[in-house]
């Protein structure tokens, strides 16, 4: 299978949002077609080492940031290679696009991108073993079988271990990938069985496996102080004084050209600032606290770049002619006029920060024009490009070692900290470990874009949704002359956003405001906000129509007809398949005893579904709300359809439960406020998350296996929980919350 690295990078450069999935829509932009290197084929010689002691070393190629991919991808290889999982050792590869395809963590893409090629690696290895054994015994290959790292010839009761066969097998020509036969899933011994993360022993012993733990002899520790306003530059600073501080070895200003584009680039590269290098990080950090800097804050430091102004301006824009119409099916206006019931509501959600628990860091060493980097980037390829450009060296002279990351959530899809480390190391002439303080991380993120949605919809006498209009006020730039809108990164809404195609008269308009802070993809980009809006508003419609919220959703899903054909290409992504979604809505209703039994006053269930990243998720939350607006989520039920196979059930359940809790944090706690172009919140005390006592005591996860290729679940599992809880809050308390976080409406956890 040709995996197209060029197109996936292009997508990431285009930036987050649903656009990570843009990969699916650009299958023809082939690397070969543009004269780039051929994609690395699935080759067991590259991924598998058979050791003399019959253990097997399998290379894990993708960045591990807690999604379990370092265990999951080798499982695919080991299964088809047919070895004993206990005999498998796993090694992390470096970044090397001449050997490995798509070394990337994002878009819940690891499963769909690797399900076939990684099993091909294993199956090709197994085929070579059989070939070598058959030749050794001079018997037909068809008489040979394999089991747990051995080739067997049952007729003569002979067997050879892979260890004994490896030299011969690995010298044989590669089999044609098309002739390989995969195992029948009924025979799986590894896939589909709960496998523990292979790095558990190192984690529980506190071994230095994370980016922040990297140590290079002779290295100095660095902090990098940037202007609170994006693009600001150092006018002057008391560097002479700083250099006298204990432990400080170097301090210098980095000055970079202005970025003047109205929409900030996704990964703009190195920014201006002040680097301080010391013998320990605490010394560098202590010296930084004594910095006195006069910043030239630049054009983004103005009053209009403030959250309060954005909210006011969005309100104004909603009453004016939209900048652009993204989609118009039928005639929404006329049908809103004639509908039996019309509901109108304004929803909003703030900027939020990724805030992975391990703050951004990177270790770099530049010597003789070559750069060596240790990174937990989710997209090392993009970082390599930035580093090569900033250091003015060819990409091949930049070596990237991939280190475990303490969470990603999309933050490490931008490589600002990598290019900073490399540039500082080059300037300083010594190896450098750059570590951002939490405050750097929270004030220099690529935020989940905030947004405003002004909705109006109508239902007819039978409760059918006949018209839907959304004026989506987002961030970006508007070219009044061309009538064209360019959205900020991850701040777009596409023309097929639900319930498009399920409502005959559907209009989606947009207007945008210019934005001076960076935005990007956060776990389930756009969906993490859109699901809250759309599934809450659908709930409002259900109540207005006097219908049960589950039945109303099933009826709505029945109105859409078949899913449109996917564009051709290896990762062509079909649109929402209503039958699959109905399947999970019905399953979650059944598992949660929806509509059965009476709950005490102040306690209720809420339901929501959302389709993203090819995953179908429906979720129910049982919630109580007291008079003081204290909220307790007692239990959550999740029903998911991500295809025919859950590769690692232990990891899958863990990730889905985590997504529920993550979504609850977004619902209750998280907001980044902008004031005069700078971010106000600096740490977890102002941008919090759910703690253990607040987490639902029970989260039941049910997978509905369907005859579809396996897809990812880290992202699509998150979006429905926000509206599921919000809808339950409405039923329990009568209060409809239309703005995030709900703490601003007086709610808190019980």
């Amino acid at each position: 299978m040709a995996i197209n690295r060029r197109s996936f990078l292009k997508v990431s450069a285009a930036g987050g949002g649903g656009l990570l999935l843009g990969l699916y829509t650009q299958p023809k932009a082939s690397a070969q077609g543009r004269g780039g290197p051929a994609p690395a084929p699935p080759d067991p010689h590259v991924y598998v080492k058979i050791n003399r002691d019959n253990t097997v070393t399998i290379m894990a190629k993708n960045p591990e940031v807690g999604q379990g991919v370092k265990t999951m991808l080798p499982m695919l290889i080991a299964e088809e290679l047919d070895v004993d999982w206990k005999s498998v050792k796993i090694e992390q590869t470096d970044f090397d696009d001449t050997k490995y395809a798509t070394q990337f963590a994002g878009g819940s893409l690891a499963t769909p991108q690797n399900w076939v090629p990684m099993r091909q690696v294993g199956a090709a290895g197994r085929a070579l073993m059989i070939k070598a054994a058959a030749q050794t015994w001079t018997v037909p290959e068809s008489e040979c079988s394999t089991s747990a790292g051995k080739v067997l010839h049952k007729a003569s009761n002979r067997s050879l271990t892979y260890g004994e066969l490896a030299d011969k097998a690995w010298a044989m020509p590669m089999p044609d990938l098309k002739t390989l036969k995969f195992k029948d899933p009924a025979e799986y011994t590894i896939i589909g069985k709960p496998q523990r993360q292979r790095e558990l022993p190192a984690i529980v012993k506190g071994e230095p496996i994370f980016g922040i733990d990297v140590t290079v002899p002779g290295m100095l520790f660095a902090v990098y102080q940037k202007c609170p306003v994006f693009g600001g530059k150092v006018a002057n600073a008391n560097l002479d004084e700083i250099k006298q501080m204990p432990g400080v070895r170097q301090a210098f200003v980095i000055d970079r050209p202005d970025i003047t584009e109205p929409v900030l680039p996704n990964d703009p590269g190195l920014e201006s600032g002040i680097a301080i290098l010391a013998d320990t990080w605490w010394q560098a950090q202590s010296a930084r606290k004594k910095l006195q800097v006069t910043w030239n804050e630049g054009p983004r430091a103005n009053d209009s770049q403030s959250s309060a102004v954005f909210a006011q301006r969005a309100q104004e824009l909603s009453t004016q002619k939209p900048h652009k119409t993204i989609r118009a099916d039928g005639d929404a206006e006329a049908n809103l006029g004639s509908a039996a019931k019309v509901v109108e509501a304004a929803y909003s959600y703030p900027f939020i920060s990724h805030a992975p628990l391990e703050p951004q860091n990177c270790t770099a060493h530049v010597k003789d024009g070559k750069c060596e980097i240790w990174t937990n980037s989710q997209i090392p390829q993009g970082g390599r490009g930035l580093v090569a450009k900033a250091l003015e060296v060819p990409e091949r002279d930049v070596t990237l070692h991939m280190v475990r990351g303490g969470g990603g959530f999309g933050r490490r899809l931008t490589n600002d900290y990598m290019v900073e480390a490399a540039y500082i190391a080059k300037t300083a002439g010594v190896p450098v470990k750059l570590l951002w303080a939490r405050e750097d991380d929270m004030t220099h993120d690529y935020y989940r874009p905030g947004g405003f949605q002004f909705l109006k919809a109508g239902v007819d006498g039978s409760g059918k949704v006949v018209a839907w209009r959304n004026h989506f006020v987002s961030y970006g730039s508007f070219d009044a002359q061309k009538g064209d809108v360019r959205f900020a990164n991850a701040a777009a809404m596409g023309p097929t956003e639900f319930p498009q195609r399920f409502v005959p008269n559907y209009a989606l308009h947009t207007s945008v405001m210019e934005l001076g802070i960076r935005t990007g993809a956060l776990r389930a980009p756009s969906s993490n906000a859109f699901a809250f809006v759309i599934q809450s508003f659908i709930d409002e419609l259900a109540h207005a129509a006097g219908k049960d919220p589950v039945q109303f959703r099933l009826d709505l899903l029945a109105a859409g007809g078949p899913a449109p054909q996917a564009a051709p290409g290896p990762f062509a992504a079909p649109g929402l398949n209503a039958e699959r979604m109905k399947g999970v809505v019905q399953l979650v209703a059944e598992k949660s005893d929806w509509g059965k039994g009476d709950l005490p006053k102040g306690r209720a269930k809420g339901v929501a579904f959302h389709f993203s990243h090819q995953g179908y998720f429906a979720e129910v939350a049982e919630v109580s709300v007291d008079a003081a607006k204290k909220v307790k989520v007692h239990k959550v039920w999740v029903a998911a359809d991500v295809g025919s196979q859950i590769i690692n059930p232990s990891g899958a359940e863990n990730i889905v439960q985590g997504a529920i809790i993550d979504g609850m944090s977004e619902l209750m706690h998280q907001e980044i406020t902008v004031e005069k172009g700078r971010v106000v919140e600096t740490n977890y005390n102002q941008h919090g998350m759910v703690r253990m006592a607040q987490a639902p005591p029970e989260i039941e996860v049910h997978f509905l296996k369907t005859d579809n290729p396996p897809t990812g679940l880290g992202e699509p599992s998150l979006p429905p929980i926000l509206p599921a809880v919000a809808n339950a809050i409405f039923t329990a308390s009568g209060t409809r919350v239309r703005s995030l976080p709900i703490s601003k409406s007086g709610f808190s956890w019980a």
Partner: protein
Amino acid sequence: MAYKLNVNGRSATVDASPDTPLLWVLRDVLNLHGTKYGCGIGQCGACTVQLGGRAVRSCQTPVSAVGNAAVLTVEGLSTDGTHPVQIAWQEIDVPQCGYCQAGQMMSAAALLARTPKPTDKDIDSAMNGNLCRCGTYLRIRQAIHKAAELATSASARTVQTAQNGSR
């Protein structure tokens, strides 16, 4: 300033300014990287160690305040990953990214030393200072119950004895 510390049963002399948080002494002076930095303001618990058997945030503990109190870090829980919380954490397959887990385990081990059979309420209050950005709380709770079970079962008794000895 020179400070004589007792870390994981060994004595170590370190040179650091008095306000240096124990966290950074452990990480950057003693090269014990298991203890993690997450927030630096006592909010996340990634930096949790035990000081005289109590779970404390090492980012909020200046080295000058440590004195003779025994410092226990994740590296000192056991020599071979066999402390009951370490076994339970592996059995339940708790971590996602794993970054918070050293701190979680240090809080859990302190709880179990004090309260060998904790209730869910005990767990909620003991673990309140430890954030998990990945949301592994359900498994952490399960693993603490499991560790409590292991610690009282015969198989783990020897491990436990070794632990108490090393403190």
